């Protein structure tokens, strides 16, 4: 009798355990994926996520969009509080800072379990997602900038070939503005010259400096970080870009334009208000859609040392608070795979995938710039937060453009503050 009772209790317990585990196996996993690119540029990503959801009924993904300027701070607040999305899109330059403070899940065990794509070494800019030899993010998309222009306007102004050097760009810009009658109808060169901490001026300033053999900060032979640019080099750089406003070959209202995707630039190129600007690929495509005449890309102008641009892009990371890291990893593998890039109009960050890409003729500028593009590794490894450097440079350039300081004063101010930031970083 007792044996029967024990057997019954055992059977019913086993049955309930089996049932509950079956029920939990059937339970739908819900992941949150947060990205920060503008909604106008993510239709392809939305399609890719929809496609995942259709083929993975057991792991559903909710796509969240947040503005780029707020994402990092939001993540830094959420994760310590035990919240945040499961999968987070990251700017290349953020990954190490987040990893240092344990705000990202270390991915090595997941990579060892199932390596993404053609192996983790196949990913560009992996060094930016690595801290002390451990991987905290998977580079997802890669891009760089190239010059974008209206070939019809260049032809009309008698500019036979796209300017190959910075000086040639300034000359061509003058010709193009004059061809527009010197009125507000047509400007030679338009660029985001805003003073905001996230203004695109930072990128252009670095291209000019790097191509002329200089850089803001660098390590000496002993490994010590120091300010590398001289006041003269920096003043010359500021002077170069300020001259576009002094000569009237760039519209003055660009002093408040921060984003390269601003309608002043994207629409301006299409309308012919601007003959030349500079864009990353997705912004160039948006401009192409808005333009009635064909647009073209060309390499970034050469300096005295070389031609160069930066290798930027997005990485993907997993929140350490995620209750479903394995599912999140599966989803990341899908996002970095070829299926996603069928609809997502970005360059993949995998060498094996990018080599198979067929670039349209209008995007040849990117084909030439990608092999010479360099990451911001040189700054990310320094004791100064890249965002502080960016804010400082944009602010001082803006002060010159608006006539508050001359280039020499601004150069001195930048160098002095970089030295202070270096001292603070070491302390």
């Amino acid at each position, binding site marked *: 009798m007792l044996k029967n009772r024990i057997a019954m209790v055992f059977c019913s317990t086993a049955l309930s355990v089996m049932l509950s585990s079956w029920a939990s196996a059937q339970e739908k996993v819900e992941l949150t994926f947060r990205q920060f690119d503008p909604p106008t540029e993510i239709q392809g990503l939305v399609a890719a996520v929809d496609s995942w959801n259709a083929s993975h009924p057991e792991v559903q993904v909710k796509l969240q969009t947040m503005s780029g300027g707020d994402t990092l701070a939001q993540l*830094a607040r959420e994760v*310590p509080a035990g919240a945040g999305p499961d999968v987070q899109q990251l700017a290349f330059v953020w990954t190490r800072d987040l990893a240092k*403070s344990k705000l990202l899940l270390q991915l090595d065990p997941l990579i060892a379990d199932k390596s993404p794509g053609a192996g983790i070494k196949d990913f560009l800019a992996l060094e930016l997602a690595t801290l002390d030899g451990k991987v905290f993010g998977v580079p997802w998309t890669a891009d760089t900038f190239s010059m974008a222009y209206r070939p019809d306007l260049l032809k009309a102004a008698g500019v036979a070939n796209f300017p190959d050097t910075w000086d040639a760009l300034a000359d061509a810009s003058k010709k193009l503005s004059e061809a527009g009658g010197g009125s507000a109808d047509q400007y030679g060169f338009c660029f985001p010259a805003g003073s905001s901490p996230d203004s695109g001026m930072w990128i252009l300033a670095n291209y000019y400096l790097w191509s002329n053999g200089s850089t803001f900060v660098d390590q000496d032979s002993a490994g010590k970080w120091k300010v590398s640019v001289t006041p003269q080099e920096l003043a010359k750089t500021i002077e170069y870009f300020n001259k576009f406003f002094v000569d009237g070959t760039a519209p003055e209202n660009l*002093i408040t334009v921060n984003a390269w995707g601003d309608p002043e630039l994207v629409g301006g190129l299409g309308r012919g208000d601007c003959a030349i600007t500079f864009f990353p690929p997705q912004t160039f495509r948006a401009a192409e859609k808005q333009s009635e005449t064909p647009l073209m890309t060309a390499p970034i102008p050469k300096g005295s040392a070389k031609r160069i641009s930066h290798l930027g892009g997005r990485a993907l990371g997993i929140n350490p608070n995620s209750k479903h890291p394995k599912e999140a990893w599966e989803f990341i593998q899908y996002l970095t795979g070829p299926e996603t890039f069928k609809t997502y109009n970005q360059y993949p960050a995998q060498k094996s995938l990018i080599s198979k890409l067929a670039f349209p003729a209008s995007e040849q500028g990117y084909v030439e710039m990608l092999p010479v593009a360099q990451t911001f590794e040189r700054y990310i490894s320094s004791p100064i*937060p890249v*965002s502080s450097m960016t804010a400082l440079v944009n602010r001082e350039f803006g002060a010159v*453009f608006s006539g508050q300081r001359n280039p020499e004063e601004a150069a001195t101010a930048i160098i002095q503050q970089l030295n202070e930031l270096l001292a603070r970083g070491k302390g």
Partner: protein
Amino acid sequence: MTVLASGRGQSMGRKTGGYLPPSLEPYALVLPAILVLAFFFAGPALYNIALSFQNVSLFDLGQSNEWVGFANFVAVLTGGGLAAAFFNTAVMQTLITVVLRLLFGLGLAILLNADVFKRWQLGWLVRSLVLIPFVTPPVVAVAAWKWLLDPRYGAVNQLLLSLGLIERGIPFLSRTSTVWAAVDAMLIWRELPFVVITFLAALQSIPKELKESARIDGASEFQIHTLIVLPMLKPVIAIVALLTTIWTFNNFVYVWLATRGGPGDYTQVLATKMYTVSFVDYRVGEGAAIGVLMSIIMFIFAFGYLAVLSRKGKEAA
């Protein structure tokens, strides 16, 4: 009688059946409200004060951080840009716009209080129209103003061009000579309705008989407004001035959305500086110190202001 009996019964019930002595009951009744206030207001404020004494980066929130005494305050006060940001906050953003709002607000309220609107039953319409800017979210208001001020396609420049006053569109937000006027215009447009509606309500509470008897005594409309209406509005003007000053001094959105503190750092105010230090330079401790300094300034202003008002009130009495 019934009421009395019932009341007596309740009172006795309280004495015998209550959990607390009657002397503590009032405290018990307000305790929930105090707890809610402490949780939502005092808690974050105290946390911010604690952060201002710590060396904490944006990525180290929620962790135990090093206590550094007044080092953050020293860094903020000796670092560059604080004096300019304070001047911009106190004068360019607050003083100018508060004074203009009080003047325009009073003028508009007197206009809207005119009998003609009541006679034509248009009072509800004009009050609704005045409220439109106030119900527009600041982000939308600033975006709309940026379009209005666009040098090539903006309505303001088109108007000036069509009147022949300018030859080329003015980039209002790019020039140091015009940028503060543009930001202040946005702020005043969006925030003026609060002042107008408050003054209008106060005006409507002034007994008509006072004005009528003054008219019978031969007072002009100007005398009625300066000698009767304005003195009666004084307490309301004082409170509106205090509230708008505090709100504007701490305001972040208008400058941030319109200029991000630029061109250069020409329109940098304390609130945008606090944001930049905390979320761009990642120095949350120093950002919190700026926040504490802003609070101290506003406390001193509010207490000083109220003390002066109260002294004047006593003198008048």
